[in-house]
C-alpha cells in the first residue's frame, strides 16, 4: 500500500486510541462515551467553528449539530479512514462552511480574528504539537516551501473558512491571482508530501 492509499502513515497516538475507543462506545449507544468525547474534543472543534462562523451563538448551534452527527455516525468511523480528530474536524468544518452559505451576510458579533496564526508569537508549549494533534513536522516542512502568499491564502481558507472571494477582498489581490496562488500552493504541497512519502 502506498502512502497515497493510506491517509495516515503514522501510527495512532494514545490520544487517537482514546478517541477511537470512545467512538466505538458511542456506536454502541453509550452516552457516557459521548460525554467524554465531548469533553476531549469540543474545545478544539468549538475553536474551529468560532473562527469560521465568527458568531458565538451560531458556533454553539453548529457544535450541537457536530456532536449529533458524531453520535449518529460513530459506528461508521474506522481507523483506516485516518485519525479520529481529522474526521471530527472535517465534520465541524464542513458544517460551518454549509452554514456560511446562509450566514455570511449577517454582521459578525465576534470581531475578526487575526487569520495569520503562524505570524503570532508562539510560546514554547505552542511550538510543540498540542495534545489533540499528532506530532508531524511534514506538513509544516512542506508549507515552509511555499511562497508567503500561497501559504497565507491556504491559511485564510482552511482556518478562517474564507472563500476565494473573501481572500481576494482580505488580501486586496485580484480573484484570479488568489485562485492561482491557492491552486499552485496545493499542487506544491502535494508534490512535497508525496516526495517525502517515497
Amino acid at each position: 500500500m502506498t502512502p497515497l492509499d493510506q491517509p495516515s502513515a503514522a501510527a495512532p497516538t494514545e490520544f487517537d486510541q482514546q478517541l477511537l475507543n470512545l467512538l466505538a462506545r458511542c456506536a454502541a449507544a453509550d452516552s457516557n462515551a459521548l460525554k467524554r468525547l465531548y469533553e476531549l474534543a469540543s474545545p478544539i472543534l468549538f475553536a474551529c467553528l468560532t473562527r469560521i462562523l465568527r458568531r458565538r451563538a451560531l458556533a454553539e448551534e453548529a457544535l450541537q449539530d457536530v456532536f449529533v452527527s458524531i453520535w449518529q455516525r460513530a459506528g461508521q468511523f474506522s481507523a483506516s479512514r485516518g485519525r479520529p480528530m481529522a474526521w471530527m474536524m472535517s465534520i465541524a468544518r464542513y458544517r460551518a462552511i454549509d452554514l456560511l452559505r446562509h450566514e455570511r451576510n449577517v454582521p459578525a458579533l465576534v470581531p475578526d480574528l487575526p487569520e495569520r496564526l503562524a505570524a503570532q508569537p508562539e510560546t514554547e508549549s505552542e511550538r510543540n504539537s498540542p495534545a489533540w494533534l499528532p506530532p508531524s513536522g511534514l506538513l509544516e516542512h512542506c508549507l515552509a516551501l511555499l511562497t508567503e502568499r500561497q501559504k497565507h491564502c491556504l491559511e485564510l481558507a482552511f482556518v478562517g473558512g474564507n472563500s476565494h472571494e473573501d481572500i481576494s477582498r482580505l488580501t486586496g489581490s485580484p480573484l484570479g491571482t488568489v485562485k492561482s496562488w491557492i491552486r499552485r500552493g496545493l499542487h506544491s504541497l502535494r508534490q512535497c508530501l508525496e516526495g517525502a512519502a517515497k
Partner: protein
Amino acid sequence: MTPANPELVDRLAAEYVLGTLRGPARRRFENWRATSPHVDQRCCYWEEHLMHMAKGLKPVQPPPHVWPAIRERLNLTPHGSRRRWTRNLALAASIVLVAGLGSLLYWRSLPPVRATAVSIISTKAGDELWQVKVFGNTNRLVVQAEKLPARQAGHDYELWALPKGGNPVSLGVMPTEGTSTRALTAIQKSALASSSQVAVSIEPTGGSPTGQPTGDIVFVAPLRASG
C-alpha cells in the same frame, strides 16, 4: 474504480477539504465523493494532512449549556449508565417484590418491550437485507443486517424515515453485519411517527454529509406499526 483524471480529482479534493470549493460545485463534488471510493480516499488524504494547519488554534471551552442541549437533542439520559444502573436496580428490586406477590403482578410490572413499528427491507427477488425495528417506548432503533449484497468500498447504506409532507430524516448508517442499536432523537422519533415508508440510500462512508440523501435511493420499504 479510479476516475479517468486523477489529477483533476486530487485538485478538487484538495479544494473541497480546504473549503474553497463552494456552491453547486461543492454539492456536486460531495455527490461524487459519495459514489466514488477513489474520490473519498483522496478527501481523507487531504483531511489528514491539512488538519495540521489548525495547529495554532487555541482551544475554546464551549459554554456549559451546549452539552445539555446536545443531550436533549439525542434524547440521552442525564447521567448515562449511572441512571440505567439505578433503573436496573429498581427493576430488579421490583421483580423480587412482585415474585412474592404473584406472577400476574410480576408481568404487569415489566415495561412493554415489543417493537412499535417494523420494516423488512428486501431485494426485488425477495431476499431479506435488513430488519428495522422501532421501540417507541424506549426510543431505540434496532437494525439487523441479513444477507447483504457486496458493497463498494468507501460507501455506506443510510436509512431514512420518509415523513409525510416533509424531507427525509436520517436514521443513521446501516450495519453491514450483526445488529446495531441506536438511541432515537426527538426529531427521528417524530419523523418515524408520520412515516409509512423508510428508504435506504448509498452515501459516502459515515453517511450523507448534507443531512439529506445525496446518493441513489436503492431500497424503499413499508414501515408497519406492530405490537
